[in-house]
């Protein structure tokens, strides 16, 4: 076994065997499972017990309302408001709904009254409002002698369907193209940012640990400093990949298990005002279209470039972190001024994508960011879901690979000097000088 592979093996195994790694890797999908179960639980939660509401129909438009989820409507009979209020106090019913007469047809806003000492849950009050509004609408239509069918014809939905002009572009775009692109790009960007930052810093801590442990000189007398640094970078990178693969598999297992556990066909998203009104057919249609959009994405290209950008970004940043770690003493706080130049571009890139990328993935700033090699590992994967011009992707790829090679080389120059330097507060200027040392 070569020395480099021995180092990689040790770096990998000591990390993967750590309790914190095992717990983190297992717990994330368990957390996801809990989250999904909570959502399923919440969406099937009816907002408390059923309440009985007497309807005092002064407007004479309500008639008999069918019972709803959690609300039972009772006719008031000939009882007065006061009599009904007494029934509420006696806990025979939960509340009284008074619908005053509709006097003015021009009026848009109507007020109805609910008498009770218990608070009406928002979900229930929304439901009641919707039912009464429907009744008022029917009453207005009747009074104005409007035909319901004709009225329906007046309603129009408009959506923009983007169509490409260049023949090489996919002209079968829909209003979901952008949304799905954003989601795919966003997830890739977030994953890249998170992994590069987390595992890059892991390399830094590990370099610092060897330096403060004083084992580094022993190691140096057996292996070249560059091998030791690369062994660390590659080892930690493999740990990162292991974690992601484990998460993907475990998440897959979890999303397969949840329906079994809850006995539901699929996990429904929580009820929101937006989709509460959507009829099931339309929802199914949306789902289908999103699936179509997803399948239209060029997955081999996306996954392939994700891997290249991950490797590029990871090598660029983790070698920077390794160099910084080698220059630092035992004290993490003291090295803040050194870690900043390594973390800042990464955070800036993520910030640009999350602020500018969402609005327009093809803006000048985004084009620059997706080519500039310190930003491109974060920014380009985001743009990839939007079919950027191929030459931009090509330049970006060439630059990111070249920069990765350059940064690894540069970090190696700094590392070999810094790692053996003790008791000295190091500045960036000094680190730069180190790169010119011979041998």
């Amino acid at each position: 076994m070569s020395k480099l592979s021995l180092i990689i093996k040790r770096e990998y195994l000591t990390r993967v065997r750590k309790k914190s790694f095992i717990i983190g890797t297992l717990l994330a999908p368990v957390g996801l499972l809990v989250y999904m179960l909570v959502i399923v639980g919440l969406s099937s939660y009816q907002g408390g017990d059923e309440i009985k509401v007497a309807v005092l129909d002064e407007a004479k438009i309500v008639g008999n309302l069918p019972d709803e989820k959690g609300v039972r409507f009772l006719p008031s009979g000939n009882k007065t408001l006061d009599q009904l209020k007494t029934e509420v106090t006696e806990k025979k019913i939960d509340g009284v709904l008074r619908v005053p007469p509709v006097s003015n047809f021009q009026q848009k806003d109507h007020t109805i009254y609910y008498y009770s000492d218990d608070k009406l849950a928002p979900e229930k009050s929304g439901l009641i409002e919707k039912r009464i509004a429907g009744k008022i609408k029917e009453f207005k239509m009747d009074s104005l002698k409007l035909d319901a069918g004709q009225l329906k014809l007046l309603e129009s939905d408009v959506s923009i369907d983007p169509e490409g002009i260049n023949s090489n572009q996919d002209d079968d775009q829909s209003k979901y193209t952008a949304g799905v692109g954003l989601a795919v790009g966003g997830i890739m960007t977030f994953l890249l940012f998170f992994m590069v930052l987390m595992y890059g810093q892991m390399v830094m801590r590990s370099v610092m640990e060897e330096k403060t442990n004083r084992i580094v000189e022993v190691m140096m007398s057996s292996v070249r400093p560059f091998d030791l640094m690369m062994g660390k970078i590659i080892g930690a990178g493999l740990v990162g990949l292991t974690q992601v693969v484990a998460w993907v598999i475990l998440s897959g297992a979890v999303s397969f298990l949840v329906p079994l556990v809850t006995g539901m066909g699929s996990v429904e998203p929580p009820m929101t005002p937006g989709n509460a009104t959507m009829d099931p057919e339309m929802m199914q249609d949306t789902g289908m279209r999103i699936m179509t959009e997803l399948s239209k994405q060029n997955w081999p290209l996306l996954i392939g470039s994700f891997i290249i950008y991950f490797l590029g970004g990871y090598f660029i940043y983790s070698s920077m972190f390794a160099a910084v770690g080698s220059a630092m003493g035992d004290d993490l706080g003291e090295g803040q001024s050194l870690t900043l130049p390594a973390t800042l571009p990464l955070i800036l890139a993520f910030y640009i994508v999350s602020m500018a990328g969402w609005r327009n993935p093809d803006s000048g700033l985004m084009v620059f960011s997706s080519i500039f090699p310190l930003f491109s590992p974060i920014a380009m994967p985001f743009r990839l879901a939007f079919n950027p011009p191929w030459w931009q992707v090509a330049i970006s790829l060439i630059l990111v690979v070249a920069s990765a090679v350059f940064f690894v080389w540069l970090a190696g120059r700094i590392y070999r000097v810094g790692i053996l330097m003790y008791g000295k507060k190091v500045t960036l200027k000094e680190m730069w000088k180190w790169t010119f040392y011979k041998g």
Partner: protein
Amino acid sequence: MILSVQDVVKTYGNYTAVNHVSLDVPKGCVFGMLGPNGAGKTSLIRMITTITAPDSGVIYLDGQKLHARSPEQIGYMPEERGLYKKMKVGEQLLYLAQLKGLSQHQAMNEIEAWLTKFEIKDWWNKKVEDLSKGMQQKIQFIATVLHKPKLLILDEPFTGLDPINTNLIKEEIALLNESGISIIFSTHRMEQVEEMCDHIVLINKGRNVLYGEVKAIKNQYKQNLFRIETHEALPTELPERFPVVKTEKNALTFKLENESDSNELLRTFLQKDIKISRFEEILPTFNEIFIQRVAETEEQ
């Protein structure tokens, strides 16, 4: 020669750490590398161990220019030493031995032999952080010699060791030396040099200021001082050619012009029928030579 350093220079920026140093280490000897802190010893050792490369000059190990596999023939215990705290003793030794080019099988055999020798076989599964400092030093020593190096370089090997462990390691060093391993022993503690080394080099400010065999150097620096200790009162009248440089209660120290005058001196005492309990030549300690040489070179 096991090691030959020829006109080696190493600079860091504007600072010259090693300035045209040349020296030879004969095969099978214990070679002392002396010098005050910051003299350039560690910089020189780092070049010998291929941790860094010289700016100019050449280093030969066993007749061959240093190359990528040279480290496998060297065992180096740096002054700044350490182990992976979270790793188990056995795993750690195996890892370090494999990095020195041993196969897993060879490494396992060697580790077992050494752990048995030090009667610490049950430490295999102990984490390094659970061991005492002295115990860790033992492991460190084993890690340094596991791969049977031709040249062993020990930088201040006894710092932090208690007298018992110091003796244990001293004995091991002597045994390894007997088995043919050459040893470079870097220290600033002179009494250890006198006790253990055959040859020395004294380095100050990056330069080789004194180099040679221990006995020869001592002879070179001796001042013909002879001390006579008596059982009775000291004689009052002595010939003028025996100048006294130091008078103690029952002893006198003379500085003679020639070494051969010592017999004459003794005869004078015997003729006076003074009962002598001790007669010796006082050789300079390395401490004195060291201080003298450092002062001389700094004047230059």
